[in-house]
C-alpha cells in the first residue's frame, strides 16, 4: 500500500495500480461483511488475477544505487572539425566515470572570415564539435511489477556565445553571405531490456530548477543570418533567425513510470545519454566578402568546475 500512496498522481501506471488497490480494499471490506460477500470477493479476486496476471503479479521491490555504479557500461562519441578559418576543440572529451558517478563534456568552436580569399578558396569557414557519453546502468529488479524509477543528477554548466553576422559586400550579378551559430545540450534517459533487445516504454517527467518537462532536458541557442544579393532580388534579400530554448540547470530529476511490468528474469538497463553539439560557420559566395563576422560558442560541462553527477538512482 505504501507503494500506491507514493505513486505520482499524473501517471497512467499509478491509475492502474490504484484500481488494483481499490479492489483489494473493497474485497477486504466485503470479507468483513459476510460469507457470501467474502466468497464473492475471493472469486472476483481470483478472476482478476487470472485476467490481469501481469498486474496481479505486480510486487515491485524497492532498491537504489549510488556511486560506484558497478557494472555500468559507458561509451562516448567525440568529434570535431575545422575548415577554413575556423577552430574547434574538445574542452573535455565526453566521458562518465562509474566510480564517482561524474560525467563530463565540453567543446569550443569558432568561425571567422579568412583574410585571404580568392577564387572560392578561403570563402567559407566552419567548425563543429560533438561530445556525447552514453551509459547503461544495470537495473536488477527484486520483484515483478510496474516500477517507478528516479534518477537525480547534480549539474553545473556554463555557456557562452558570441555572434555577429558582419557586413556582406560584393559586386557580382549574384552574391551573398551567411553565418550561423548553434549549440544544443541535452541529458536524456531511457530504459532498455537487454534480454530482448528493445526499449521499455515509460511515462514520466524530467524536472529541473522548478519546472518539469519531458523525459529529456534539452537546451539550445541558435542564430543565423543570410544575405542574398542579385538582379532578381532587386538588391539584397536579408533573412535570419534567432532562437533560445531551455535553461542551464543545477539539478535534474527524472521519473520513469514503466508502462509494463518489469520481470526479475530480464536484464534491464537505465540508459542515459548526455552531451552537446556545436556548430559555427561564416561563408560567402559569388565573389562576395563578409567582414567583421564572428561566430563563437563555448559550452562547458566538463572543466572549470562544470560536470554532471548522478547522485543516486532509486526504484520502487
Amino acid at each position: 500500500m505504501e507503494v500506491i500512496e507514493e505513486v505520482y498522481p499524473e501517471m497512467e501506471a499509478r491509475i492502474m495500480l490504484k484500481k488494483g488497490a481499490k479492489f483489494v480494499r473493497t474485497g477486504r471490506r466485503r470479507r468483513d461483511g459476510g460469507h457470501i460477500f467474502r466468497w464473492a470477493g475471493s472469486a472476483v479476486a481470483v478472476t482478476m488475477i487470472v485476467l490481469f496476471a501481469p498486474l496481479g503479479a505486480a510486487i515491485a521491490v524497492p532498491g537504489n544505487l549510488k556511486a560506484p555504479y558497478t557494472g555500468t557500461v559507458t561509451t562516448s562519441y567525440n568529434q570535431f572539425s575545422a575548415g577554413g578559418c575556423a577552430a574547434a576543440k574538445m574542452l573535455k572529451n565526453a566521458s562518465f566515470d562509474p566510480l564517482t558517478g561524474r560525467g563530463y563534456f565540453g567543446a569550443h568552436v569558432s568561425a571567422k572570415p579568412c583574410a585571404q580569399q580568392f577564387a572560392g578558396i578561403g570563402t567559407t569557414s566552419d567548425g563543429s564539435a560533438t561530445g556525447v557519453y552514453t551509459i547503461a546502468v544495470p537495473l536488477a529488479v527484486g520483484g515483478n511489477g510496474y516500477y517507478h524509477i528516479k534518477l537525480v543528477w547534480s549539474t553545473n554548466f556554463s555557456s557562452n556565445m558570441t555572434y555577429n553576422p558582419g557586413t556582406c559586400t560584393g559586386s557580382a550579378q549574384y552574391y551573398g553571405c551567411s553565418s550561423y551559430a548553434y549549440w544544443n545540450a541535452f541529458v536524456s534517459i531511457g530504459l532498455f531490456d537487454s534480454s530482448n533487445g528493445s526499449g521499455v516504454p515509460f511515462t514520466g517527467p524530467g524536472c529541473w530548477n522548478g519546472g518539469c518537462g519531458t523525459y529529456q532536458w534539452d537546451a539550445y541557442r541558435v542564430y543565423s543570418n543570410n544575405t542574398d544579393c542579385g538582379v532578381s532580388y532587386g538588391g539584397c534579400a536579408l533573412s535570419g533567425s534567432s532562437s533560445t530554448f531551455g535553461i542551464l540547470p543545477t539539478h535534474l530529476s527524472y521519473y520513469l513510470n514503466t508502462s509494463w511490468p518489469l520481470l526479475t528474469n530480464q536484464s534491464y538497463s537505465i540508459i542515459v545519454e548526455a552531451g552537446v553539439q556545436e556548430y559555427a560557420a561564416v561563408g560567402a559566395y559569388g565573389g562576395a566578402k563578409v567582414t567583421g563576422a564572428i561566430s563563437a560558442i563555448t559550452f562547458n560541462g566538463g572543466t572549470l568546475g562544470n560536470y554532471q553527477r548522478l547522485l543516486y538512482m532509486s526504484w520502487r
Partner: protein
Amino acid sequence: MVVSEKGERGAHTERRDRMLGAGTSAILVVLVAMIVFAPLAVARPVASSLKAPFSGSVVSTYRNVVAQGCGLAYNVKNPSWNASTGKGVLAEYAAANSCASQSGYVGANTQGYSFGEYDIGIPVNVGGNGYYHFKVDWATHFAVAKSYTAGTCVVSNSTPYYCDAFALWYASAGAGLYDATNNSWLQYTTALVCWNGGCLGLTYYPFPVWTGFNETHNVTNCNYGTCYPQNTSTPAMYSLLPMHLDFFLNTSWPLLSSHKYAVITYCYAEAWVSMYSYNTRITGASGTVNFNGGTLGNYERLTSVTWK
C-alpha cells in the same frame, strides 16, 4: 605614268602588285573571318609557367576527427600547404577495437575516423587570348599501413542481427581551372589525370581527380537463422600510391587576358576503422590505419603549373 613606273620597277614589282591585287580579296576574307570568328581569330595563347614560390596563392584547410567507443583517431599532421616551397602535408591515423564491455546497444558502435584536406587557389594571368593547355604537376610521397582483424560476429538468439566491421584509407587529389572574374568553373575538351603510367579522364565534375583507396570489409547479416556474410577487399590496382600526379586541362573556350583565372588544386586523405553490431556483439575485432603524407619524409609538392 603607271605603265612607265611599272616598266621601271620591273617584273619583280609587277608580281608583287599582282599579289597585292589578289591579296586585297584575301584581306577582306580575313577581316570578315575575324569579325565572324572573333574569338578564334584572336587565339594567341602565350606560354608560361609557375613554380614555387607560388605568389598570391590562397590555401584553405579542413580536418575532422571522430573517436567513438573503443576507437581513436587524430590528425597525425594537420593539413597545410606552403606557397613558398609548394610543399603540402597531411597524415591521418585511425584505430578501433570491438569493445569488451557492451550492454544492449551501448558499446556496440566503435570507430576511429579522421580526414585532412587542403585546397589551393593559384592566380594565373594568361598573356594572350586563346584556347589553353594547362598542366599541373605534383610529386607525391605517400605511405600507408593498415592492419585489420575481422573478429567474430557472435551468434545471437535475436533476429535480425547484424555485424559490420571495416578498415580503410581513402585519398584523392584534383586540379581544375576557375574563372575568378565571373566566378565559374571552366570546362575542357580534354581533362586527364595521369599517374604511374596510367591516365583517367573527367569522372568528377568540375575537374579530373585521382582517387586511391584500400578497404577490408566484413558484414554478417543474419535473419531467422540464415546468415549472409559479405567479405570484400579492394583490388590492389586501386590502392597504388602515385609518385607523380599530372593533370592535363585543355580549355573548351578561349581564356581572356582581361579575366582573372585560378588553378584550383587539392589533396585529401582519410583513415577509418569501424565496428558496428545490432542485436549482437563483435568480439576480437581490431584495426589500425595510417595514411602518411606528412611525416617521416612523406609530403606532396606542387612542382609546376604550365600553360601554352
